[in-house]
């Protein structure tokens, strides 16, 4: 069963003269129990998409369903079945941890006891602070409380809008561990993030940029679709090296990538060619090796391809 479907969703803001297109014909499907990632930078349309799917915003055109219910016609039924954690902390700052959780349980006509097993692993970490006001919690604790509140009515589909933005690497890792536990309970999870490295933790991902879906596939599938030769190159002076790599005739693209630079080759060029090109320069300590592309390489390549090609990629591949 499809847990979530979106078909040709369009959302624009602004006036006729000055239109901002947040979503441009977005279509995809999410299977029951899937952990589906929406990966893209700020301004990609992630929040608009989540607000449409959670019935909080109307699309200009297109259709969407959650649990086979229409997001426009069946909004009341959908609201009972989805959990939504917005990007901005939106619990009551002047209620305590326990009061917030109690409040959300009550409005969904359930109780903390009834669904405690679902939130236990997460809530236990903040339970020692249950009498503290939510506004006085640290970032990581707020996040755990917000997730507990979004889960307390045992939703079928969970929407998490940038839960890890601005969160340090350790807390990010912990958060993804929590998501894996939830997935085992059969909850469908849609999660958005600007961090490309988090894509590999999802079952499938949609890469999205300025309202256009660039690609939808499993993380492995997206990486497999990256065809050109990718080299990792370093030298003692990294910035001059980058400028030289960008000037290389065989370079389709060259960009910094952590410890190394990544050099994407045009067809017909190879590692030996790069080596002899760099031998003619003044660089010292040159190291060149083949590299496996990761999601970020794919995202960069998709961003730079002509928009016509990106438009062909709209249809869900599942």
């Amino acid at each position, binding site marked *: 069963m499809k847990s979530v479907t979106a078909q040709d969703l369009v959302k624009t803001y602004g006036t006729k003269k000055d239109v901002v297109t947040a979503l441009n014909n977005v279509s995809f499907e999410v299977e029951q129990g899937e952990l589906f990632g929406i990966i893209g*930078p700020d301004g990609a349309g992630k929040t608009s998409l989540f607000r449409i799917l959670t019935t909080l915003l109307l699309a200009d055109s297109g259709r969407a369903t959650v649990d086979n219910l229409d997001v426009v016609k069946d909004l009341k039924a959908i609201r009972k079945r989805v959990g939504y954690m917005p990007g901005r902390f939106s619990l009551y700052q002047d209620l305590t941890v326990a009061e917030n959780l109690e409040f959300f349980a009550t409005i969904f006509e359930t109780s903390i006891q009834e669904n405690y097993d679902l939130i236990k692993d997460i809530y236990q970490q903040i339970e020692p602070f249950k009498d503290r006001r939510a506004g006085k919690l640290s970032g990581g*604790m707020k996040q755990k409380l917000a997730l507990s509140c979004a889960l307390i009515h045992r939703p079928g589909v969970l929407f998490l809008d940038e839960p890890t933005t601005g969160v340090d690497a350790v807390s990010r890792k912990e958060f993804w561990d929590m998501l894996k536990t939830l997935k085992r309970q059969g909850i469908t999870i849609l999660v958005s993030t600007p961090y490309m490295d988090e894509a590999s933790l999802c079952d499938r991902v949609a890469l999205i940029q300025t309202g256009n879906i660039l690609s939808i596939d499993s993380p492995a599938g997206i990486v497999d679709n990256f065809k050109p030769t990718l080299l990792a190159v370093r030298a003692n002076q990294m910035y001059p090296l980058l400028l030289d790599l960008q000037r290389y005739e065989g370079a389709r693209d060259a*960009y910094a*990538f952590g410890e190394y630079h990544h050099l994407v080759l045009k067809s017909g060029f190879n590692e030996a060619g790069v080596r002899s090109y760099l031998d003619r320069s003044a660089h010292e300590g040159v190291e060149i090796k083949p590299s496996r592309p990761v999601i970020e390489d794919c995202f960069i390549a998709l*961003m730079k391809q002509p928009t016509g090609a990106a438009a062909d990629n709209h249809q869900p591949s599942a």
Partner: protein
Amino acid sequence: MQDAITTRNLTKTFGSFTAVDAITFHVKKGEIFGFLGANGAGKTTAMRMLCGLSFPTSGKATVAGFDVATETEKIKRSIGYMSQKFSLYEDLTVRENIRFYAGIYGKSRAFIREKTSRVLQQLRLENEADKLVGALPLGWKQKLAFSVAIFHEPEIVFLDEPTGGVDPVTRREFWNLIYEAAGDGITVFVTTHYMDEAEYCDRVSIMVDGKIGALDSPKGLKETFGVNSMDEVFLKLARGAKRSDG
């Protein structure tokens, strides 16, 4: 060579809580210095003291040769500052924003006029100069904000998570601007949650529980911790933190 930043046992307490606990480090002139740490480790508090926005409880620090306890106004004139949240005035044009900030730093009209055209050219924003900043894509805004932060040619620029949420292509263009600024002799003090960006720094410090947990070049840190990436260095250090954010 004189250091751009020096601290000795720099400490800040709030009541019984020691946010920054006797940190001692130096940042060299023209260096790109990464200032990392988990949420709640004390980065922001330390940075606010270095920018002259918060007085140390004890210890000493100088920025551009000025004392953070007694010469905060001189410090503010010598530094640039940019954060992910603080941006430009959305309802002013690109040109107006530049003129406004340069004017605050007391730059002459001739200087502003001449440098504005250079900056617009560098950012390839010549055709957008008279558009409202609010109409620019986020990535351009961040690059413009950086250029505005160093427009008055400060000795040091403080960047607080400048690339958060920015797309991967723009993020790299942003770092090219950082390299160019460093090449012009501006010292860059930068925080980030992207571990690949830690690799772009000359040296990196990682704060843990208010202290400097480690400070070295990315290469040196990886060797010391016997790992292959800055990500692993960070996880190893931050995992040991007592002051958990969670």
